[in-house]
């Protein structure tokens, strides 16, 4: 590999790194700008999602409170059953409870159900919102039914809202701790696995670390070699220039008559500029 080729590779590598950095910074910038632009919409959606006008009704709030209490209890019960909280005596005796699979399934399904119930609840509450119904006139009969003032309509609306609230809270109360517990169990499982592999695992880790270190040293050696070559080149050029300068002094004034242009034509391109500069200074 010649010096110029190595230099070119270095430039390409530098350019590639620079481009990556620019791309990364632009990506971050673009994402930030998009998020800032979306922020008002997100805030509006959150406000609309969490403060529907139906919640102004104290009767509905009471129903939803009952639903949330029942849902919370149901969620706790579900989580306790799946997490084996009733089997503490097994743990206390030094045993273990197989619950990883159950917890994973519970976390996934409960959180999905909670999300679906939230969406359903929000839509349900929107059904008695005049602004929403004006946009979706096809739902007007539903609106008219719920606002008919009839006992059955009120019971149905409040009951559905309470059930959806209960399901949502049951999902969250059961799913969120199940997900956390499942994560902790998985971490422990990995730790146990590493412990089981024992000394062999440690040696493999050491070999991998050694390989990394070897590669790093090789890169450092290459860089040092490149730097040494570059330094030799610079020294050679400096020696050449010094020699040329000495010859010029021996020629004396006669060289001035030959003309700076002819002298410049004889020297390599790299030395042309400084020599010309010197000739000008002297003239």
């Amino acid at each position: 590999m010649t010096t110029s080729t190595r230099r070119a590779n270095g430039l390409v590598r530098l350019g590639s790194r620079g481009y990556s950095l620019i791309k990364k910074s632009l990506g971050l910038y673009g994402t930030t700008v998009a998020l800032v632009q979306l922020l008002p919409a997100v805030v509006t959606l959150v406000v609309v999602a969490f403060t529907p006008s139906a919640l102004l009704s104290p009767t509905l709030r009471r129903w939803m409170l009952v639903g949330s209490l029942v849902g919370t209890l149901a969620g706790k019960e579900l989580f306790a059953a799946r997490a084996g909280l009733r089997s503490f005596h097994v743990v206390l005796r030094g045993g273990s409870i197989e619950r990883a699979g159950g917890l994973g399934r519970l976390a996934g399904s409960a959180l999905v159900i909670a999300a679906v119930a939230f969406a359903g609840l929000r839509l349900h509450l929107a059904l008695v919102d005049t602004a929403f119904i004006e946009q979706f006139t096809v739902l007007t009969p539903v609106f008219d039914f719920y606002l008919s003032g009839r006992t059955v309509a009120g019971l149905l609306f409040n009951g559905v809202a309470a059930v959806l609230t209960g399901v949502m809270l049951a999902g969250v109360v059961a799913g969120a701790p199940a997900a956390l517990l499942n994560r902790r169990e998985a971490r422990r499982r990995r730790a146990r696995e590493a412990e089981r592999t024992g000394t062999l695992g440690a040696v493999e880790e050491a070999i991998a670390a050694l390989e990394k270190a070897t590669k790093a040293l090789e890169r450092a050696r290459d860089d040092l070699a490149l730097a040494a070559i570059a330094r030799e080149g610079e020294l050679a050029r400096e020696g050449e220039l010094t020699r040329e300068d000495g010859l010029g002094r021996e020629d004396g004034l006669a060289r001035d008559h030959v003309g700076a242009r002819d002298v410049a034509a004889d020297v390599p391109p790299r030395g042309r500029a400084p020599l010309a500069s010197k000739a000008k200074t002297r003239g």
Partner: protein
Amino acid sequence: MGGLCVLLVAVLTLAFAQPGEVVGEAAPEAQVLDCLVDRALPAEPAVTADGGFSFQFQALAGTAVDGRSCTVHRLRNSPGGPPTPVRWLAGAELLVDKARLGRCDDGSCEWVEVARYFEGGFELSDSTLGYGLNADQFTSVTDSLVAVTEPNLGAITASVGTEVEGTVQLADESEIAIAFTVRSRLRRADGGSLTLVYELETATPALQPGGRLALVWDAITPGGDRVLAPDRTADRAFELAPTFAGDGRVELGPDIYALELPVDALAYDPRSRLSVVERTRPDAVLLSVPMPAFVPDR
């Protein structure tokens, strides 16, 4: 300077007056139901609007055509407004409940009117209009005229009554216009014997024998689980609670269905309510209004 102050006070009074609030005495209005109105609050029907709902309301008071006192509370949807369940309360006292103001076009919006006829007077009171979902999604606080009933229980005769005119919506979403008057009366004979009379007067076919509607009057049906209405099979005006069963005598007249009940002593229940229901669904109230009653003192 003094004139300027008076002007300033007048401007401030008008500026801070609530929409629909009465400023001064209202001009006497024409008769509403059997009530000759001499006071209205607000002077003109006021509009309350929130959350896309919009309807008119007004409280009236005056003298009934038979010389007793009367109040009228009335509600009407605004043209194009959505169906609006309304509950109108004055503190703990019910004025109108379960009123359902249906959709209507300009010119077709009818009042739901509840008139009360009684001995006594009326007073100014804060009232709350709840409307929208469960009739409590939005509220509007306003002044209103509230009946203060003071029947003379020692008199030879006394009477208290409620008249309703409006529209109710049934479970099958059909709408029925209703108009009826319910009275509770006491009659004292020469010998001092007392008779209580419970009376329904209506020309509405749905409330007559064989009709789809019935009335529940919780004063004479404790618990409100019994239907009170002209019965198609039995020859009596009301089906009464077990405490009354077998005691009453029925008098039927044109569009009048009444029950006479001899009692030894009586009491006055000013808080009882009258509800319109479907005969097949007596628990589903379509409209509820105040209807005080004379009841046996047991």
